[in-house]
């Protein structure tokens, strides 16, 4: 029997997914359904005189349904613009709204993040698990640069924007990794033991479980890579907060200042090795290219500059072996996501974004090619 060292809350989310799978198919929620769901939640929270206005589905969100609205109630007479992030029946990334709320609260004041206002971890009131935060203004890609993309994948920044954004992109990543998480309320997270291989093994077990539950056909390279990742799991000296999806498309910035207004999409956050965020951010799928065809991490700066500046800012020393391991892990996780739930969820009809998921899944082979390249580079 293969090792299955999962965090308890992560295991709960996966078990819950399998129970709910058969209750589909899922339809995108209408504005009226969301309005009713919000009123149920606010009643349960004891809010009186509730007024919900300007309810509007937000663009993007391949993983979660997202709605913006204004809330006014007896204790808050001035309307506040808020965002609801709600799970569809199944998602390409099946994650936990309670963990997301906890990490957002912990990160307040560390990096720019929205404030958490309400959380319904099991969907008791909303019908589906959901999280409500403050609305943050900004864009995820410059409006003056042609960068058509799906879910931020393949978007590109021009040199002018890169010059403004790259230093912040690095500074915020370092701040996340420097955060003293032991003093925070993160009880939905289970920290791996320092000085052991548990940080890496838990990530492999997480995504191996996803593959086992969601694969629609075997892919030898995915199975082989899982075995390789288990055999070569490195020791994590000191667990840090890992954002888990630190890349272009997952931060917002103001125009024209270029000031990053929010680091978003914390659903894959966990406690683990800092190399994990580096190996993820440097994925080819999340990058861009300069005019000479050179690869840019996050579409912003070269791989060498990214790693060098990270070391300089953080004082951490990047271990090339560990970085390589986490690059392989990152590519494998993306491949599992795109070829596992990316196919299974639309097959079940259980997402609001079946079309987007199959579109993204069609790029799964890019990740498989990346795994091969990374293994041959070793």
């Amino acid at each position, binding site marked *: 029997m293969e090792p299955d060292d999962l965090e308890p809350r992560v295991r709960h989310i996966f078990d819950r997914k399998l129970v709910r799978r058969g209750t589909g198919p899922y339809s995108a929620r209408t504005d009226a359904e969301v309005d009713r769901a919000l009123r149920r939640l606010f009643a349960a929270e004891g809010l009186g005189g509730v007024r919900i206005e300007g309810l509007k589905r937000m663009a993007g969100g391949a993983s979660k349904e997202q709605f913006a609205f204004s809330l006014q109630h007896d204790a808050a007479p001035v309307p506040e613009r808020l965002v609801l992030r709600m799970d569809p029946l199944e998602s390409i990334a099946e994650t936990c709204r309670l963990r997301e709320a906890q990490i957002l609260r912990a990160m307040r004041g560390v990096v720019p993040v929205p404030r958490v206002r309400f959380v319904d971890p099991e969907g008791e009131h909303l019908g589906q698990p959901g999280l409500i935060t403050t609305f943050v203004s900004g864009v995820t890609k410059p409006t003056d640069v042609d960068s058509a993309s799906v879910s931020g994948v393949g978007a590109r920044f021009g040199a002018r924007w890169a010059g403004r954004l790259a230093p912040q992109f690095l500074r915020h990543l370092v701040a996340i990794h420097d955060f003293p998480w032991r003093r925070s309320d993160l009880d939905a997270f289970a920290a791996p033991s320092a000085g052991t291989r548990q940080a890496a093994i838990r990530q492999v077990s997480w995504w191996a479980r996803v593959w086992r539950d969601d694969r629609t056909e075997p892919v030898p390279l995915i199975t082989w890579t899982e075995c390789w990742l288990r055999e070569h799991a490195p020791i994590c000296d000191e667990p840090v907060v890992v954002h888990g999806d630190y890349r272009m498309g997952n931060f917002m910035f103001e125009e024209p200042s270029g000031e990053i207004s929010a680091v978003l999409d914390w659903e894959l956050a966990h406690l683990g090795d800092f190399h994990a965020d580096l190996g993820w951010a440097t994925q080819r799928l999340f990058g861009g290219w300069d005019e000479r065809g050179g690869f840019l991490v996050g579409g912003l700066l070269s791989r060498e500059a990214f790693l060098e500046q990270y070391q300089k800012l953080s004082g951490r020393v990047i271990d090339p072996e560990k970085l390589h391991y986490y690059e392989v892990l990152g590519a494998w996780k993306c491949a599992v996501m795109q070829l596992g739930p990316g196919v299974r969820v639309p097959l079940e009809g259980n997402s609001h974004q079946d079309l987007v998921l199959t*579109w993204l899944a069609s790029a799964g082979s890019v990740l498989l090619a990346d795994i091969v390249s990374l293994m041959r580079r070793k």
Partner: protein
Amino acid sequence: MLPSIELRIQNLIKALSQVVLPAIDPGNALAREQAQLVIGHLQLIAVQWDKALPFEAQSLAALRELGQRLASAAEGGSATVQAAAQLREALAVREDGAALGSAIDSLIRAASADGAAGFRAQLDQAVLEHGALQAWRERVWFAGNGLDPDPSALPSIDEMLGGARPPRPA
């Protein structure tokens, strides 16, 4: 003459692009994105549908070749020996790609547990070679999605099905 599949896909794309998409409320981002994705999927299907059978046949042939390489080289402890025997049984059934893939998976896991060192080296090589070829073939198959970071390096689907092979790694 009956309207062909190509013609009907072409009609669908035209109707969606010229009539349906412009009629969608610009403020309805989800509906606009979905319409654009429907058009994108149809454009992909238009170049794939009549080549799907040879594409699938070549994928199965590549998987069988991998299975044969592994089954003939397998060496190790009881888990590896047993998984190799099951793989040989799966190879005897010519058209069941899912069963064959599962048998290959089982042998990969078994070799990880008790495969002989020499076999494991051969397995690593064989799986990576199969993975590289299949990933390249699938990238060609879906090059029209615009998500590939290096589409200019890929041949056409017809060239790939005609026997073109990926460039050897440097």
